[in-house]
């Protein structure tokens, strides 16, 4: 009886030890092998965001190709933010809030910026309309239609008959 109890207790002890070992293996493994250092941020990753930004100091030169110290500082900021795990949208939002919407190569479609999106479409529609009207007027059929319209017999009913007769007489004299 005592022996069997001893066996049971020993069995439980062995099981608990095995369980502890099983749980502790991954933990120990994690302690022995710390997280590998994150991959370094490449220039391509930085430039992918930089070419969507314009520094106010250098107008019309995208950040990725601008050679000034100010732009170099900005690229360093982008690199640091990428290393911190910030997303492209977060980085662009940071620059826009700090330096104004004009740093964005593609402005947000809101407020006065809507004009940037609407005006080209309006211009294109107007240009297309002008082109269509011009082509219609230049078409040979349009000229013929205009001639035929002017060739319709004139209506003299509201003119004095005496005046009409005189006009026709003089016209015949002039034509002959």
């Amino acid at each position, binding site marked *: 009886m005592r022996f069997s109890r001893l066996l049971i207790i020993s069995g439980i002890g062995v099981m608990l030890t095995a369980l502890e070992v099983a749980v502790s293996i991954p933990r120990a493994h994690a302690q022995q092998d710390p997280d590998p250092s994150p991959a370094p941020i490449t220039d391509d990753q930085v430039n992918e965001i930089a070419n969507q930004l314009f520094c106010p100091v250098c107008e019309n030169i995208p950040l990725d190709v601008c050679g000034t110290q100010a732009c170099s500082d900005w690229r360093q900021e982008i690199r640091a933010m990428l290393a911190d795990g910030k997303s492209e949208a977060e980085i662009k939002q940071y620059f826009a809030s700090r330096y104004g919407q*004009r740093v964005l190569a593609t402005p947000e479609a809101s407020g006065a910026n809507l004009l940037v999106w609407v005006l080209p479409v309006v211009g294109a529609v107007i240009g297309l309309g002008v082109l269509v009207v011009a082509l219609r007027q230049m078409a040979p059929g349009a000229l013929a239609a205009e001639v035929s319209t002017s060739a319709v017999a004139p209506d003299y009913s509201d003119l004095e008959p005496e005046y009409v007769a005189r006009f026709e007489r003089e016209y015949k004299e002039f034509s002959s």
Partner: protein
Amino acid sequence: VTQDAQAIAQPRAVRWGQVAIWVAVAAILVVVWLGLAQTFAAQPNNGKAPDFTLQTFDGQTFRLSEQRGKVVLVNFWASWCAPCEEEAPDLQAAWEKYQDKGVVFIGIAYVDADHKSKAFMEKFGITYMNGPDLGTKISDDYNIKGVPETFIINRDGEVTYFAAVPLDLATLSAELDKALAE
């Protein structure tokens, strides 16, 4: 003959398409004109100085309109700007000379990272108030074209001096004395 007479006698129908085209062209010209006017607007060198509020690097709130009765020197600068480095010791010297004479200095960091601005201030021992121009709103209001640019504003809040070059202590002293004498 009759048709021509009728054509002359009757008013021409309004061509709404043409009206729309002209309105659209006029609108585009106005937008372009406004953009060009903003681009080529000069920095204010007289008249009321545009008001602004700035959060300084040390957490204070500076409002220009609250400085009436004092002469204010506003300096736009950046840590990446070499002429600003040339000017910084003279600005600090001028601040030390005039801080007890009713003059306020405010530095505005233009398109600069905070940590770089603070490092610059530490390097040159700058002790007057400085802060970042968030959204480049203040520099837009003052139409600055680069850095350094400096404005001196008299006790009535009017610009009395403007320079787009690095200033030395002699020039700063002369211009601040003039503003104080007004």
